[in-house]
């Protein structure tokens, strides 16, 4: 277990170094940054002076090493747009995205797993057919369309829920949360529903397929032959085996949620990192883009490591121990 963890962390470090390299290269592809910092009629000497001050005259690998060292400490320099530290900008925006993604992920699990189980246990019921149909629609509609439909229904026609923003937020330390006010909670509903819809249908269908598969296995047949109750068979014997593969997909999708949040945040003018990223793209604000890339990758890598660890915890076959294969 410990060796596995160490191996995963070493792997993760290499992945992050590669990501950092890509982020670092972005600065190059966007043209000579000195151009955007000095006035157009600056002399060559002035330019060289700026270049030296920014360290851009040094060999690339030195620059990369410096980029990595700073990034590791959370320092991504100043935003080219408003000259504020990139780390501060991200820290301001992070809670909004985190809360949105958290609620969406929670919804998709809390609804997706029971619905998947239900539809697996009653494959022929009308409710199952209906859910399967709805989920097919849910999985095929582009998320921005569902977002706009949600706004149209619940904000424009019914007027129940706000169509943009986070409502009132409360600061808890540096974290600004929408969980503590009614408007904050109401504002969370539509965006998190929009964001979770794809994931929810995916989890429901996956749980259903896995559960039906598991219910056909010999060990379930044998459990029935021993006279165990349906409840024990479904929830003690089948569910664990069902959830093992579901967890991997969920972990991968959690990263996807952060990426998809860009669209949701745009549709709902949600003041999160995704919206910040879109702004940065339109202004060519490379430090913010690079920092976003690195941060999101870090979250991806962390989640994947946690998922792999969970997998080992849940599936005893993956645990390496002394007793294995003893006769």
């Amino acid at each position, binding site marked *: 277990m410990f060796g596995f963890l160490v191996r995963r962390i070493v792997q993760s470090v290499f992945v992050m170094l590669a990501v950092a390299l890509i982020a670092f290269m972005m600065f190059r592809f966007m043209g000579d940054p000195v151009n955007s910092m000095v006035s157009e009629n600056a002399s060559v000497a002035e330019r060289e002076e700026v270049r030296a001050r920014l360290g851009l005259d040094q060999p690339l690998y030195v620059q990369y090493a410096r980029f990595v060292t700073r990034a590791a400490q959370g320092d991504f320099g100043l935003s080219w747009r408003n000259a504020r530290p990139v780390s501060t900008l991200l820290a301001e925006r992070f809670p909004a995205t985190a809360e949105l993604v958290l609620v969406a992920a929670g919804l998709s699990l809390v609804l997706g797993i029971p619905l998947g189980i239900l539809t697996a246990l009653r494959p022929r019921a009308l409710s199952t057919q209906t859910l399967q149909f709805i989920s097919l629609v849910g999985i095929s509609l582009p998320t921005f369309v569902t977002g706009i439909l949600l706004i149209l229904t619940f904000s424009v026609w019914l007027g129940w829920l706000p169509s943009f923003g986070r409502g009132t937020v409360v600061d808890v330390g540096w974290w600004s949360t929408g969980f503590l006010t009614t408007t904050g909670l109401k504002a969370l509903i539509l965006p998190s529903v929009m964001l979770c819809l794809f994931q929810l249908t995916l989890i429901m269908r996956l749980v259903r397929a896995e559960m039906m598969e598991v219910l056909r296995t010999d060990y379930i047949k*044998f459990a029935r032959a021993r*006279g165990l109750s349906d409840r024990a068979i479904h929830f003690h014997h089948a569910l664990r085996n069902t959830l093992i593969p579901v967890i991997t997909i969920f972990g991968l999708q959690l990263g996807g949620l952060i990426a998809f949040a860009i669209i949701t945040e745009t549709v709902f003018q949600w003041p999160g990192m995704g919206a910040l990223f879109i702004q940065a793209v339109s202004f060519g604000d490379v430090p913010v883009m690079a920092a976003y890339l690195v941060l999101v990758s870090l979250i991806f890598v962390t989640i994947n490591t946690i998922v792999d660890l969970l997998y080992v915890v849940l599936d*005893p076959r993956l645990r390496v121990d002394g007793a294995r294969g003893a006769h």
Partner: protein
Amino acid sequence: MALLTVENLTVTFPSRHGSTNAIENVTIHVEPGEILGMVGESGAGKSMTGAAIIGLLEPPGHISSGEIRLEGERIDNLPPAAMRRIRGRRIGAIFQDPLTSLNPVLTVGDQLIETIRAHLPLTKEAARERAIDWLRRVGIPAPEKRIDTYPHQYSGGMRQRVVIALALCAEPRLIIADEPTTALDVSVQAQIIALLRRLARETGAAVVLVTHDMGVIAETADRVAVMYAGRIVEVGPVAEVLTHPRHPYTAGLMASIPRIGPRPEILPQIEGAMPRPASRPAGCAFAPRCPYRIDRCIAERPALRGTGAAQVSCHLAEEIPV
């Protein structure tokens, strides 16, 4: 009184192209404490008979006629909850593949304790004691330690021992063992059969032992039932049926005994193949392959008849040379 009687049992699978009978008019009985061997080619209906007895036919398959009685009480039409209390407690089942019969994510102890507590009013601690005791009885070394390990930490033979413990831990009167050694190493097959026979004797349980291995039948069973294409073609005391088979199909099976190793799924000694349920001939199902076939065999289905312990379903039972 017989422990189990199955009378004229027919299991039907309806489908869009008309329904088929997986087994037809199966009649067998099992006496307390005896071992009834069941033989027949793959697809003959042995597992289906077992599934019908424990009430676990897979829908849309269902019992379309006939009766099953356990200690005189009808069990083929019980509500699910009542049937569930019979499974494990009064009828235990052992399946073919020990590698897939155990839940991989639960410890052996979890599975045993859960099964014991499903049928017996025991505390967790008492159930655990009983589970350890059963592991010891089926020959698992250091059961106090092994109880908390997972199935993948056992070898195939050891897993089948665990499966046997699971099937027997609530002391059922009847055990249906469906090819319990087919998936195992030849070297451990005999051990498992011996274990099963010893435990059955110790607990007084009767066993329906489904196997391809006529050698095992000869050594282990008291009586043997031969199945062919969904029907019983011959049944009787082992000594009698094996030495004087009266059905040509049984005689053909006997011819395969001297072979060593796993039995062939189809019989090279008898030309042709067993018909599928949908294409079963109107008369005797064995007629197309039978060297002694007469016109009557094709026209009329022979009933299972006979006096005394042995019964056979063949028009020519009296005339065929043995």
